[in-house]
């Protein structure tokens, strides 16, 4: 017990010292420069690369100095939330577009409506509509799409050809046939497709393809046990039952690229971040043997949709330099800057017009992304979504592993979701009654 108390005291002392030195540093750096200091947070590789785009912006805007802080993806969410609660958010930041709803609910973000009204650079119709839509919460835009991360099918052309398929089928029944054929020629111990059992993205994509809204009643109740999602979920589970997909979690595949090269699986649903990896990590002799295709859909009438992933640029509510922050966002949104960004990172531009550039049209692997981007759907834009998705993932994994039957997993998921969204139902109801009371 005494050791514990000692530690408590020490923590307090170090905390005080920490705060002291922090304020000292803060005073030192800000008093020297005449220019407005704009704090911009960006994640991972983007945070590294965006620094190279800053000098040109500063040259155009001599009154602004941009300080880019690089935040690792794994810590980003927590760091931003703590920053908001501690009122120390940056002026602008890159934000995963599935986080926009959450930060809007926290009232951490500035609505971009007034800024868009006067802008000549940024306008909704210049973007892929599914991608733009992810940033619109309750009718108001809170982010400008920066780059897109939708998922398509990466596959082994050579193995598919051996199985008798020249192109990737576009409907589920044909696709499943193709998987069976691939499984037959792939050799013992190998599979047709890798669907990591601890990722929610695959069952969610299949559900969206089948037309499930995922959540119903203004996103206040679960719709997972309704026919659309249930059919899609059965399709997903059957792929494991038939032995077309191995029940592996993604960390059980020691080296994805090696296994793909070896033919351990011939198809994999993933995003643009893997384009560079496949080029780099697959051996040269396999470089002509892989291709990408848009995701198949349930039938010819319903082409396969995919997730509208990506990152957006946002302005924080507490920022004191909103006009300057908006200038930075406009700069980063220009088509030519988007193309430079593509060259630096490989991140796909969110602006539709940038896609007519030869840098994008000459790459055959990107064609599938171009087509897929016309058909992307946002997941429910509520702060609880990720929690629900993780819960779906846990239940789906239990079904894949044979612990629970599929239908009871979905029913219990809906029960869980209904309870988790009780607060949201109350808020929606309260908003409705106050609106009614206000109306004469």
């Amino acid at each position, binding site marked *: 017990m005494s050791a514990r108390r000692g530690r*408590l*005291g020490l923590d307090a002392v170090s905390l005080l010292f920490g705060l002291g030195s922090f304020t000292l540093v803060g005073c030192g750096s800000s008093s020297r420069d005449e220019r407005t200091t704009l704090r911009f947070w960006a994640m991972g590789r983007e945070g590294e690369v965006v620094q190279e785009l800053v000098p040109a912006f500063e040259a155009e805007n001599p009154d602004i100095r941009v300080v880019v802080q690089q935040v690792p993806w794994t810590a980003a969410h927590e760091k931003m939330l703590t920053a908001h609660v501690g009122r120390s958010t940056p002026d602008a930041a890159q934000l995963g577009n599935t986080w926009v709803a959450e930060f809007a609910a926290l009232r951490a973000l500035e609505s971009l409506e007034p800024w868009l009204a006067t802008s000549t650079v940024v306008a909704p119709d210049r973007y892929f509509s599914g991608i733009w839509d992810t940033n619109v919460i309750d009718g108001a835009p809170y982010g400008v799409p920066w780059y897109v991360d939708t998922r398509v099918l990466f596959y082994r052309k050579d193995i598919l050809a051996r199985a008798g398929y020249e192109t990737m089928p576009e409907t589920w029944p044909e696709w499943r046939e193709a998987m069976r054929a691939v499984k037959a020629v792939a050799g013992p111990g190998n599979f047709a497709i890798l669907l990591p059992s601890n990722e929610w993205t695959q069952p969610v994509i299949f559900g969206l393809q089948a037309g499930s809204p995922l959540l119903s009643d203004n996103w206040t109740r679960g719709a997972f046990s309704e026919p659309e999602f249930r059919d899609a979920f059965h399709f997903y589970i059957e792929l494991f039952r038939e032995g077309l997909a191995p029940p592996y979690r993604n960390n059980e595949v020691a080296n994805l690229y090696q296994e793909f090269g070896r033919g351990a699986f011939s198809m994999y649903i993933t995003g643009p971040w893997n384009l560079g990896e496949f080029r780099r990590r697959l051996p040269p002799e396999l470089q002509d043997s892989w291709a990408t295709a848009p995701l198949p859909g349930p039938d010819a009438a319903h082409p396969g949709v995919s997730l509208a992933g990506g990152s957006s640029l946002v302005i924080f509510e507490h920022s004191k330099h909103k006009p300057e922050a908006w200038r930075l966002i406009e700069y980063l949104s220009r088509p030519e800057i988007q193309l430079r960004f593509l060259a630096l990172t490989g991140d796909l531009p969110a602006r539709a017009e940038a896609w007519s550039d030869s840098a994008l049209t000459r790459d055959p692997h990107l064609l599938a992304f171009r087509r897929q981007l016309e058909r992307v759907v946002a997941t429910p834009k509520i*702060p609880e979504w990720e929690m629900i998705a993780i819960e779906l993932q846990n239940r789906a*994994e239990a079904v894949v592993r044979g612990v629970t039957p599929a239908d009871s997993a979905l029913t219990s998921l809906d029960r869980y979701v209904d309870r988790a969204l009780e607060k949201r139902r109350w808020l929606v109801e309260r908003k409705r009654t106050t609106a009614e009371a206000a109306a004469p």
Partner: protein
Amino acid sequence: MKSTTERQQSRTAWLFLAPALGLITVFFFLPVVGGLLLSLTDFDIYAIGSPDTARFVGLANYAHLLSDPLFWQSLKVTFTNVLLGAPLSVLVSLGAALLVSSRLVRYPAVFRSIFFAPVVTTLVAVAIVWRYLYHPRYGLIDHALAQIGIAPIDWLGDPNWAMPAIILMAVWKNFGYNMIIFVAGLQAIPEELYEAARVDGAGAWQRFRHVTLPSLGPTLLFVAVMTMIGNFQLFSEPYVMTQGGPVRATTSLVLLMYEEGFRWWRLGHAAALAFVLFLITLAGTMIQLRLQRERT
């Protein structure tokens, strides 16, 4: 009627105590009371945005916990860790302490340092190495098992094996600390007791049973209570190794609390969980103290 000196003395005493008491109040008692109040509300992410959406919900958070299968699952995981992990940890530390204290060992200090090394090693580094060890395809452990004809076990991927794997790693990581305490306890036992026992014809086991164990009593109690409390707070090992998976097989109470509180920002829920954990730990400690008192 107190004299002036006495009153002055007590005033000085309070003055000296004030900084410590102040710190404890600010950093310990206030947060505890705050936590208790928080557990009676549905404070969540919406309430961080606009505090007027927080509602007083009475004991609803606690009622919710009792009906939540995930809570019972995490309780099961936590108790598995306490009932399997804690005794195993104490036994291994005691064994190691006896080993490094015995005269058979040539360089006891070297072994003490080796056994203590995992305690001061960064958990994340340890977790990376153990993930390799546990790997079903390339792992050393399954490789060794294959030599004696046991089929590879998917340690961290199989819901039945994930918790034993975590316990094993946690025991290996932590036993050195208790070992040092046991070594100190063993050194405090007078050599004459062993001599007397030997003269009476007691064998090694009898000497251990009738001299070592009774003399270690208080040390054993201290170690048992501290280990139990520590094991109730299982968090970092599953957090780095499995993130609570597979199929929630390694989601401990504290991990669940962390997820609820700092991932989903359901702070009311998380606070209720914290209080439940506090009550369970308190009950566990009381039982152990009672058992010890009855024995003596």
